């Protein structure tokens, strides 16, 4: 009998990839994708097979390294959160242009409702943009099986396959039945050497091939067992990925609608034409942006038959739930308890004992000494410095934007322009911005709040640990303006003095408050004890 496990959707993807015979997983941590790589790092099979699983510096380096694995005929998985797709986009879009040799699956975990993110962009747009197949499982079992199938499809079509999860699939557990693992691929090279060299002369030829491939991709979606047409009543529903579950949840005694379950893209045309001809209306349920609804409506659709987020049947923003789907289906409301009037929000906060707290305590004090001081921050635990009691930061945009926004503001005449960035975010996307600042002698003060880990996602290794000073010096920050302090109450006087001196210095200075994350410290102490 095949083994069964109660696992997260993320872990089902991890096992699917391992059992598809990957030689490596390449990723930067990001909620809700982190657990995929972590699972492979802990897997005995991965260890036995020597599957590469170290964290990468960012999503772009991850994507490119995985493409290198594919180049030599082996299989690789790349994992990231949705905004990581923006970082990897250059490599991702062009990996469709080169095509793949060994199977290459790119997993993007989207976060509608922004549980732990700064936007709710839908990665399916990237898949369509790059003209690659997209898989969107609706159950953990499908997540396992479709990951395996994605590698086969990638090798068959010589294209990367985009696998898309949303938070509730990534972070929900169900029992998954496993199948016997496949062996990893042996080393081999693709016969067409020129398609890997995207000189215009090669790329033009290749682009036509990719466009030609679209017909076959569409056909495959139409015969795919992951897309199903289930005839029912005169009202039609297109249910994508986990939206299918919310639909069926509302029909415990059988669904009276005609349903097209979609888990593989490009969209299958035939069943959609059939539904358009046979149904009075088509309600599109998709967890994320109205990707399918927009395609079905187009700009000029006058039929009024296509309903969804754009037509107002469903909220335009936020994740799907059984409740908002129920409403969109036109089913009667349930009787509900009223919310309790005394309940107040409990926002997340920096941990007690966290070094970022000490940094903000003193930085707030020093910054107040200047009329126009602005603090540009970044993505990480320290973004919580925006909330009370600190209310310390003036911006948080994307990985690395603290340094470059401070530089731009300083270029334009702001003083003091202060950047606060974490160690992992600095190596992810801060280094190049710091080089810009050094080259133009921008008058900025960069605080790299170093807790020796990637803390927000649960304490993964940080690429810059032990290297931050040498990176800054190597880029050209002057030695006397790379300052290290230990963020603890007993050092407040020193930190205050160092911050004042470096703000007053006219040029690029870097202050590195360094103290281990309180969470990883607890874990390390526990490990040392046992």
């Amino acid at each position, binding site marked *: 009998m095949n083994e069964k496990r109660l696992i997260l959707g993320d872990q089902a993807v991890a096992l699917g990839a391992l059992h598809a015979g990957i030689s490596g997983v390449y990723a930067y941590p990001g909620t809700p994708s982190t657990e995929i790589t972590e699972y492979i790092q802990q897997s005995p099979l991965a260890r036995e097979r020597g599957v590469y699983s170290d964290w990468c510096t960012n999503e772009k380096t991850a994507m490119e390294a995985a493409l290198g694995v594919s180049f030599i005929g082996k299989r690789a998985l790349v994992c990231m959160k949705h905004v990581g797709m923006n970082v990897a986009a250059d490599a991702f879009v062009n990996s469709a242009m080169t095509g793949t040799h060994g199977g290459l699956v790119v997993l993007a975990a989207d976060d509608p409702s922004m549980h732990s993110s700064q936007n709710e962009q839908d990665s399916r747009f990237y898949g369509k943009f790059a003209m690659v197949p997209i898989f969107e499982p609706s159950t953990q079992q499908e997540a396992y099986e479709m990951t395996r199938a994605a590698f086969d499809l990638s090798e068959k079509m010589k294209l990367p396959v985009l696998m898309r999860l949303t938070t509730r699939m990534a972070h929900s557990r169900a029992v998954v039945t496993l199948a016997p693992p496949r062996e990893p691929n042996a080393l081999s090279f693709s016969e067409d050497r020129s398609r890997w060299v995207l000189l215009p002369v090669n790329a033009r030829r290749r682009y036509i091939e990719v466009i030609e491939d679209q017909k076959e991709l569409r056909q495959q979606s139409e015969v795919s067992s992951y897309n199903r047409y289930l005839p029912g009543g005169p009202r039609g529903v297109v249910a994508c990925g986990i939206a299918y579950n919310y639909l069926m949840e509302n029909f415990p005694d059988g669904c009276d609608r005609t349903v097209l379950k979609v888990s593989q893209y490009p969209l299958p045309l035939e069943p959609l034409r059939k539904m358009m001809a046979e149904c009075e209306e088509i309600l599109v349920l998709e967890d994320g942006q109205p990707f399918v609804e927009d395609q079905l409506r187009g700009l000029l659709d006058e039929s009024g038959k296509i309903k969804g987020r754009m037509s107002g049947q469903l909220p335009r923003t936020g994740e799907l739930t059984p409740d908002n789907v129920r409403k969109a289906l036109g089913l009667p409301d349930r009787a509900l308890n009223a919310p309790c009037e005394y309940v107040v929000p409990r926002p997340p906060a920096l941990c007690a004992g966290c070094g970022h707290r000490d940094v903000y305590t003193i930085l707030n004090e020093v910054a107040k000494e200047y009329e126009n001081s602005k603090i540009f921050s970044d993505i990480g*635990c320290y973004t919580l410095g925006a909330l009370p009691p600190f209310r310390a930061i003036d911006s948080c945009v994307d990985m690395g934007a603290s340094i470059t926004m401070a530089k731009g503001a300083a270029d334009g005449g702001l003083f003091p322009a202060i950047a606060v960035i974490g160690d992992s975010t600095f190596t992810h996307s801060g280094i190049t911005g710091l080089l810009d600042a050094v080259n133009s002698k921008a008058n900025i003060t960069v605080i790299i709040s170093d807790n020796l880990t990637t803390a927000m996602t649960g304490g993964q290794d940080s690429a810059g640990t032990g290297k931050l000073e040498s990176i800054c010096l190597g880029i050209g920050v002057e030695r006397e303006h790379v300052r290290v302090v230990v963020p603890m109450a007993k050092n407040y006087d020193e930190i205050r003095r160092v911050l004042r001196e470096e703000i007053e210095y006219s040029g690029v200075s870097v202050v590195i408050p360094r103290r281990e994350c309180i969470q990883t410290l607890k874990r390390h102490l526990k490990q040392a004890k046992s």
Partner: protein
Amino acid sequence: MKRDIILSGVGGQGILSIAAIIGEAALRKGLYVKQAEVHGMSQRGGDVQSNLRLSSEPIYSDLIPQGATDAIIAMEPMEALRYLPYLSPEGWIVTNSATFVNIPNYPDEAQLLDVLRRRPHVILVDADTLAKDNGMPRAVNMVLLGAASAILGLDAELLEAAVAGLFAAKGADVVDMNVRAFRLGREAGTQQVKKAGHAE
């Protein structure tokens, strides 16, 4: 059989361990299980919840619909009340009565407990004190799980076996402590159910 459960608390209070144990016990009973968790930003001292669904029939949604929850199991009284619109009219609230105050505008404790006491089906245990007084301050969540076991419809033996399984790697002492915490909570929970005159 169907049990839709919301586990709630503050990041770090150990609701995922409770979920893992109930899930394991349900699997041993041959039930279908789905469990949606919260990872990421809110784990930093924010409110966290997990939707745990057990059923003898296949389960579709990972999230429980509003008004359909059979039991809210909460490590903290305000976090129990946060999910009231999700509770079914006949649903139970099993909550720790000890508050976790990490925000400046935490509501009046007496008011919260009063709202809870007026609910028709509630088990209110001071799991913090019970655990502390019995020398197991780190097993508060197991006390609460024990209290909830009075209304979960899963055999205590199955749950105890799952408790032991979860802590097995940490040695016999840790297993023993957590099983004792579970029994302590179960006794308190069962008493309250009896006192309220509810048959389970």
